[in-house]
């Protein structure tokens, strides 16, 4: 592929991405124009998410973050998902979510409640680092009580060690 071709293609992709995922936000015009508006560091509001993006945006549609055994560190692969949900919370201050922390079946149930909460808190911190506010985030740990997979093997345990992002206000 030659260079001009590559440039044209990437421009086309950027345009389509902007079209489908970053919609212009319609707002009623304010009666008195504020000259200080230019000083605000945030970009123009045509890059903001709106509620319909939760169903259409490929990043926002990802709502599960997975963890290693007995760990609560966010894996590198989850950073992009946490960044877009953090941006959504920033763009929509009225949005709120519950972070449901889960553990696999190994170990004691009450300890796993603690582990699920630790994972929920790790996701909460990551979302706050990406612009979310603490008031928008609620952590509930279910420990090992709500598995999505009931086999006793590594594959299943990996699916159960998770935090589910549940929007309670869009």
């Amino acid at each position: 592929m030659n260079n001009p071709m590559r440039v044209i293609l990437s421009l086309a992709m950027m345009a389509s991405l902007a079209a489908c995922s970053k919609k212009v936000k319609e707002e009623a015009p304010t009666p008195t124009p504020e000259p200080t508006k230019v000083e605000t560091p945030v970009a123009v509001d045509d890059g903001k998410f709106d509620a319909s993006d939760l169903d259409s945006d490929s990043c926002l549609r990802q709502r599960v973050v997975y963890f290693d055994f007995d760990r609560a560190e966010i894996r590198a692969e989850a950073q992009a998902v946490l960044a877009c949900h953090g941006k959504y919370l920033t763009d929509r201050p009225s949005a709120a979510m519950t972070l449901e922390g889960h553990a696999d079946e190994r170990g004691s149930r009450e300890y796993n409640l603690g582990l699920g909460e630790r994972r929920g808190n790790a996701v909460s911190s990551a979302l706050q680092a990406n612009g979310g506010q603490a008031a928008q985030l609620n952590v509930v740990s279910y420990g090992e009580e709500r598995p999505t997979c009931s086999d006793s093997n590594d594959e299943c345990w990996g699916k159960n060690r998770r935090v589910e992002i549940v929007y309670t206000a869009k």
Partner: protein
Amino acid sequence: MKRLQWFFVLFGLIVAHASVAQTLAVGPVSGNEAALPIAVVPFAFEGAGMPPDTDIGAVIGGDLSRSGQFRALARQDIVEMPARPADVKFATWRLLKQDFLVIGRISDADAGALRIEFELFDVAKQTRLMGLAIGARPNDLRGAAHQIADLVYEKILGVRGAFWTRIAYVTATGIGRDTQYALMVADSDGFNPQTVVRSREPLLSPAWSPDNKRLAYVSFERGNSSIYIQELTTGSRQVVASYRGINGAPAFSPDGSKLALTLSQSGNPEIYVMDIASRRTTQITKHFSIDTEPVWMPDGATLLFTSDRAGKPQIYSVPAAGGDATRVSFQGEYNARATIGYQGKTLAMAQGSGNVYRIAVLDRSRGGAGDTSLISPGNLDESPSFAPNGSMILYATREGKRGVLFAVSADGRVRQRLVLADGDVREPAWGPFRQR
């Protein structure tokens, strides 16, 4: 052969109660050659009406065998049915290699009640060790049988029996979001299951009050974990802890006035003690790790709890009024969910190594760090709960996709499965001694 006979006794019990919905079925797992042979003759009925459905002798024999300390003679080998001391021919029981013999009879008492008289004999010495009569209501003959088993156990072994006790556990039926949870209470042998509470949200961590009248437990029915205390006879209940974060691991103090619990309102799980009357809580631990699963030592002055402050979960001890924590468990990479044996000299815990979780007993009676022994075969054994006399431990494990309960003797030699007919059984909690 002995094991096979024992199987038939149990098989009879299963068949006899197969029609009762949600009865825990019991099955033998392993035997103990050192167990004392005892014959419990079917009790004679000498009352006016119909004989009761309950086979008191079979209940007593089942209890004694399940303890691992005794081996009850199978029903088809009981060739004579003496009902009174004068009818006993010791030669018969000596020939059957029995060390002990129990006989008894049931007669009418006042106001529809029954009177159960029984005698315990030492076969070799040809002497009567005990003879007593107890009253019973016709609908609680199993309870009377458990009380007789306790008396026989104590007379021979010098340790109070714990058969006339109850167990609590949680069942889950269905999958995913359709799962139905129930907190149940049953007799120590799994019979007479009663539903305490049902929920569409998870239930866990039942804990008995020392007077047997209340259960504390964790329910998610309010959308987050909350701790409830429920009266068993009336069903009335109260939320005692519903703070932000985790509300978990309730444990009644030995005098029943306080509840140890886990709260994460400060940001991470810590141990608290609540005065139940005033609901005032006192924070006991303060550490950034997970501190949970408090249990009271019998003197009420010390709590054991699980903490991962050294990296992996281990058992620690802390004064119940607050103070410095000291580590208790040293063997094993993962130790959690302590349960305390009779008089606090032993404790059991779920011990993990890689993907294998087993029940370990830590004996501290000889001082120092104590000796640890594994008493369950794994792979996912958890939630140990000591009988109030320290002789047995209930625990939960998985068979395939299903949770089941096992009762194991404290030395690990005899195990028996208690399994619900449908669904998953977990979170066993053995209740305290009952007062007659």
